[in-house]
């Protein structure tokens, strides 16, 4: 009696597919979300900061001070606007009209030609993390350029450092962000959608109805999850195609390895979604829990933007229990590095363990909750 019958699972699946198709709004949102996100991220994100608003107070007003301003202005890093006093320059920064202030003292040119060394002051807004780092590094390169241009100071360099950026030679921000987006997109769709749909069945009692039919619990699970799995795969395929065609992101690895990673990750998160729905049985709570256990970690703690290596030791270990972290490695390395299955075996092993574990816990919990 306890045999798994594919036909019954397929029937459950068919109902779920009809359910999804009948609601074009949800389907549209589920498919539009990945497309929308990839295009937005692809167009909007650029970590190489340019056009930083810089307010300038030039109290010297000489040829040298103007050439210094030229060096800042022609670097493309800064957009300059002048103010009459240092006090107002600081005020521009605190009113968010400028991210940095450059203050040139009245004796700038005189000090420079006296050979005493001329000093200018640069005040950088420390409240905005996305600009402060780059601005600090630009300043030192402008110092070199300005010293050469204005004071003809050009000592021979004792050595030269040649940096080769492997796997992303032009440091293109898109190459970095978009492969990681596959993880974020899948985590939203799989965990959230399953948690919500199944929680709804509990909420309005149709799950109990389903149980009184001869369908086995495992058949229900497989039947319910399969369509959402397919939806997740379609979404990733969208991301992949847009990434390759619209943004020209390379994919040097093996597509099968990436696909296997996708499947494992998807199954893990579907099972997690199922578990959430069984535990909560209420859509409002299921949604919040899905967000906290799936979405936020896969956005913030998976290494998507914020590097794992920089976290405190405890969190570096903590991220190991997040499937998203392992899949992030697989996604990035297959896209850009071209790692083989063998090189990624650690990540695959971890992902498989979570996958099996999550499916076991979810089905267990599901079955137990069914028995009276």
């Amino acid at each position: 009696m306890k045999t798994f019958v594919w036909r019954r699972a397929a029937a459950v699946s068919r109902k779920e597919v009809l359910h999804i198709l009948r609601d074009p709004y949800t389907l549209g949102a589920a498919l539009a979300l990945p497309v929308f996100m990839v295009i937005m991220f692809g167009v909007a994100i650029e970590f190489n900061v340019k056009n930083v608003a810089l307010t300038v107070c030039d109290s010297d007003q000489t040829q040298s001070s103007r050439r210094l301003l030229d060096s800042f202005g022609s670097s493309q890093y800064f957009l300059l606007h002048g103010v009459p006093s240092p006090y107002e320059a600081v005020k521009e920064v605190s009113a968010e009209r400028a991210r940095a202030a450059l203050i040139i003292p009245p004796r700038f040119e005189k000090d420079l030609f006296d050979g005493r060394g001329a000093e200018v002051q640069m005040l950088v807004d420390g409240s905005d993390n996305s600009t402060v780092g780059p601005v600090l590094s630009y300043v030192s390169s402008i110092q070199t350029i300005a010293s050469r241009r204005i004071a003809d100071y050009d000592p021979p360099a004792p050595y030269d450092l040649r940096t080769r950026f492997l796997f992303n030679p032009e440091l293109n921000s898109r190459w970095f962000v978009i492969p990681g987006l596959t993880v974020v997109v899948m985590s939203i769709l799989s965990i959230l959608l399953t948690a919500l749909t199944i929680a709804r069945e509990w909420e309005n009692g149709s799950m109990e109805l389903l149980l009184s039919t001869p369908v086995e619990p495992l058949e229900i699970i497989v039947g319910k999850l399969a369509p959402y799995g397919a939806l997740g795969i379609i979404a990733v395929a969208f991301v992949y195609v847009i990434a390759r065609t619209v943004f020209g992101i390379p994919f040097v690895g093996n597509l099968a390895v990436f696909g296997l990673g996708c499947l494992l990750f998807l199954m893990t998160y579907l099972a997690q979604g199922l578990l959430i729905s069984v535990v909560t049985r209420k859509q409002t709570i299921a949604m919040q829990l899905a967000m906290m256990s799936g979405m936020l970690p896969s956005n913030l703690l998976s290494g998507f933007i914020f590097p794992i290596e920089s976290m405190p030791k405890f969190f570096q270990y903590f991220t190991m229990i997040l499937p998203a972290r392992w899949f992030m490695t697989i996604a990035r390395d297959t896209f850009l590095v071209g790692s083989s299955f063998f090189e990624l075996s650690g990540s695959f092993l971890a992902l498989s363990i979570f996958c099996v574990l999550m499916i076991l816990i979810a089905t267990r919990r599901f079955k137990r909750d069914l028995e009276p």
Partner: protein
Amino acid sequence: MNRTLIGFIRKELTQTLRDKRMRILLFVMPVIQLTLFGVAISNEVKNIRLAAVFDSRDTVLRDVYERSIAGKWFIPAKSRAHDAYTMIEAGDADAVLVPPPGGFTRALGRGDAHLQLLVNATNVLQAQSVEGYLQNIIQQTVKDDMKLTPPDFPIQINTRVLFNPDLETSVFMVPGVMAMIMIISTMVMANIAIVREKEMGTFEMLISAPVSRSEVIYGKTIPYVLLGMSNLPLILAVAVFVFQVPMRGSLLLLLSAALAFVCTTVAVGTLISTYCQNQQQATLAGFLFIFPMIMFSGMMFPLENMPVVLQWISYFDPLAHFLGLLRNIMLKGGETTYVATHIAVLAALAVATVVASFRRFHTTLE
């Protein structure tokens, strides 16, 4: 306020807070989240696995390597491979220094030292920082070891970082995480609350009851404004006492900024709810809004670099205004015109969305 409205608000609050799990999600989770993400995430790059290929006579490169490891940014890479490229490809090292043939020290003596640095650039931000850090370390080491002291630059740029001189990451990140937590708990909750009634059919009952349209809307939104505001003291306390984020501006300004923000997000949630029939749709639609909001807020990605059209979008992003306000009030003490402008913009956004949802409510009820 009339009695119907008060009853309405009371019912909504009771319903939300009745569930113990919901109480935990609403009041305990934000604190945990803020602590967690405040501690864990940062833009600073640390613990980069560095390898250098050098023999015993190459003293300068050895010093460079040892200095790097001694600092807080680099840790030694463990690798069986000897080839620099393979080390990085296999994922054993993030950066490898390769000297010219014969060693870096001897090349320096000859005067044509080309030191090669290979960096794994899959993480763009990390790669940039690695190059910057190493440039400084190498420059310093070469200067010390070779007794080369080039004269100082004739132009000295004396740089000072205002408002966050030690570049504490938590000072950057915590206001952003605060804003993010508040948007989730207000916008999504308000949205779901209305859609749930539609889904269960109780909404029709509400329409037939002797309450006016505005009472329904206010009764459904005010409770979530209250809930969102009740989150603020909690997360503010964590920010100030746990993370030592300075609170330089006035608390009253911060409260009014938060109120304007919460009103806007609840109103947006209400507006979205008028387009949705069930909770699944409502949640997905919520995300379609939250993601761009986070993106255009300037919390993770610099706004200056976006195409101008997209920068315009950020003017309509309540999160961008609120994040700006939080940072300005907490870190800079609140500059009057800036704070006033942005609170006004938030209020205008709130009014606009409330008007829009009034219209939508009207049509859906017909």
